[in-house]
């Protein structure tokens, strides 16, 4: 299967903007949705729309089946041991907030410490900061070096007997380098520290086997892996989730409610308060099928060729400064964040937009890493398996034109 064949399954990829064919290079922000995902959403909305887990009627049963069988698909997809370790949320941010709150309530006390890395998305910083503030705990930072690598060798020095948890991205949304999360988990576990891995960028490019990596929590969003927006997953080891109090109250998360006190439902419902995204969550099934379909050697090889072309073209331009340079055995996803000397990232993005090229500009929800490199923002081109070499060539042409206009 070629990228061109794949593209026909994604309606958005054939739209035009300003009379030009859309070149969508903002996949790290959200991926496009295949027809199968759109169809699933429509099916749930037009044939199976009923609240789940409650009524005994036929469509309620169909809707519940769709929702619960998605849990099985996700469990299999990320290699979780138990289906109740899969909690549905509204996205990665919600998943991380859930852990920061509930884990914090159960295990973090005044003077304790939490570690995050310097390259994290705000969604993997702010929830921890909020928890530390609430608990009187201290947030420590694992630094990133000049080329964009986590300084894992400094990790052991950061951990002490007060360290309660570490949170790290599988892949940074700015740098694109695949982090050695298995190694990080190994180091942390040897000191008795659990690890949350933010898989927002990782899941679609690298997948995840939570049994192999052995992380304690894993969070990802549906919309970055072809599914509907407003759908997220939290994987948590049962041992932890059982000991954590609920995050939100109400809906199906209860056992019994009395004014004298309420008991809670077992996992996973304990963490799924309120009416769930019953039309959105089941879109994860066709989305995972698509991810599996696109994860084949032919497309991977093609995608690597495009990535090589792009990194070559960008690196050969003396005005371009790329961030996140893989070294040795390290691998990088097709994501390129850079600045151009003498041309502002926002101007570049604006001109590229009018040429039909959609890229991201700005701080990319990661101010600390922008400060680390002393830039006000970057331009980011992020690709998916449905992007083509023709698009990459066109992007480079447009970028050069835009630079010429601005300098």
């Amino acid at each position: 299967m070629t990228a061109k064949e794949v593209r026909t399954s994604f309606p958005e990829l054939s739209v035009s903007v300003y009379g030009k064919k859309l070149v969508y290079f903002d996949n790290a922000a959200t991926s496009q949705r295949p027809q199968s995902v759109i169809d699933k959403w429509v099916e749930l909305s037009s044939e199976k729309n009923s609240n789940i887990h409650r009524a005994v009627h036929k469509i309620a049963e169909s809707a519940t089946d769709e929702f619960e069988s998605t849990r099985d698909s996700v469990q299999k997809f990320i290699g979780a041991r138990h289906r109740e370790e899969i909690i549905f949320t509204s996205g990665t941010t919600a998943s991380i907030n859930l852990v920061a709150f509930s884990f914090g309530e159960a295990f973090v006390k005044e003077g304790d410490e939490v570690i995050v890395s310097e390259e994290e998305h705000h969604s993997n910083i702010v929830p921890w900061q909020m928890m530390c503030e609430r608990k009187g705990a201290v947030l420590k930072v694992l630094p990133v070096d000049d080329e964009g690598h986590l300084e894992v060798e400094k990790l052991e020095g950061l951990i002490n007997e007060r360290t309660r948890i570490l949170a790290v991205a599988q892949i940074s949304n700015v740098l694109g380098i695949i982090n050695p999360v298995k190694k990080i988990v190994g180091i942390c576990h040897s000191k008795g520290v659990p690890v949350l891995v933010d898989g927002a960028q990782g899941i679609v490019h690298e997948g995840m086997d939570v049994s192999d990596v052995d992380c304690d929590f894993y969070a990802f969003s549906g919309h970055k892996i072809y599914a509907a927006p407003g759908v997220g997953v939290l994987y948590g080891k049962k041992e932890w989730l059982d000991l954590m109090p609920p995050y939100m109250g109400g809906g199906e998360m209860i056992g019994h409610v009395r004014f004298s006190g309420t008991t809670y439902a077992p996992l996973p419902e304990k963490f799924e308060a309120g009416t769930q995204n019953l039309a959105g969550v089941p879109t994860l099934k066709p989305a995972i099928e698509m991810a599996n379909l696109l994860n084949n050697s032919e497309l991977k090889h093609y995608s690597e060729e495009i990535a090589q072309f792009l990194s070559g073209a960008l690196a050969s331009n003396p005005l371009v400064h790329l961030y996140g340079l893989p070294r040795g055995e390290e691998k990088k996803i097709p994501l390129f964040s850079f600045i151009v000397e003498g041309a502002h990232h926002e101007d570049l993005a604006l001109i590229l937009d009018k040429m039909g090229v959609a890229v991201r500009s700005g701080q990319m929800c990661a101010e600390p890493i922008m400060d680390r490199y002393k830039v006000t923002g970057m331009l980011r081109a992020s690709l998916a398996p449905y992007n083509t070499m023709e698009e990459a060539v066109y992007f480079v042409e447009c970028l050069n034109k835009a630079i010429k206009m601005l300098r």
Partner: protein
Amino acid sequence: MTEDVNKNDRYIVPEKSVKEAQDELIDQFSMFDEWLDKYEYLIDLGKNLNAYPETDKTDDKLIQGCQSRVWLDYKIENGRIYFIADSDAIITKGIISMLVSVYSGRTPKEIEGDDFSFIDKIGLKENLSPTRANGLVSMIGTIRAVAKENDLLLNN
């Protein structure tokens, strides 16, 4: 000496009325069919904007709500408001330069009496990304706020 000349230059009373200055810009923009040509024009405007002192690029002069950094400052001379502005992004600088060229050297009443609809006639707002359109709205809001504040000050 040179400084004095610039200074005098900066505080002259505009020959054109607000409306005339706006119509000129509307005409100018209507000549371009392609958005890239409009950007080229804005880039030129940005490059030709009067220098803004580096030392005045302070946080209190930053306009909130813009994706790029935009500084706006002003002086009152003979009851007229003289704006100076800058941005680290050149297209934004072109946009603010346009606003400065229309509204600088006006009395607070002249600015307050204008509805800023020329921006819509140029077709700029709807063709900017929402974040940038918000930035434009913030720039206009700041210019209006300055006019209102100084109207009160000058008339009390």
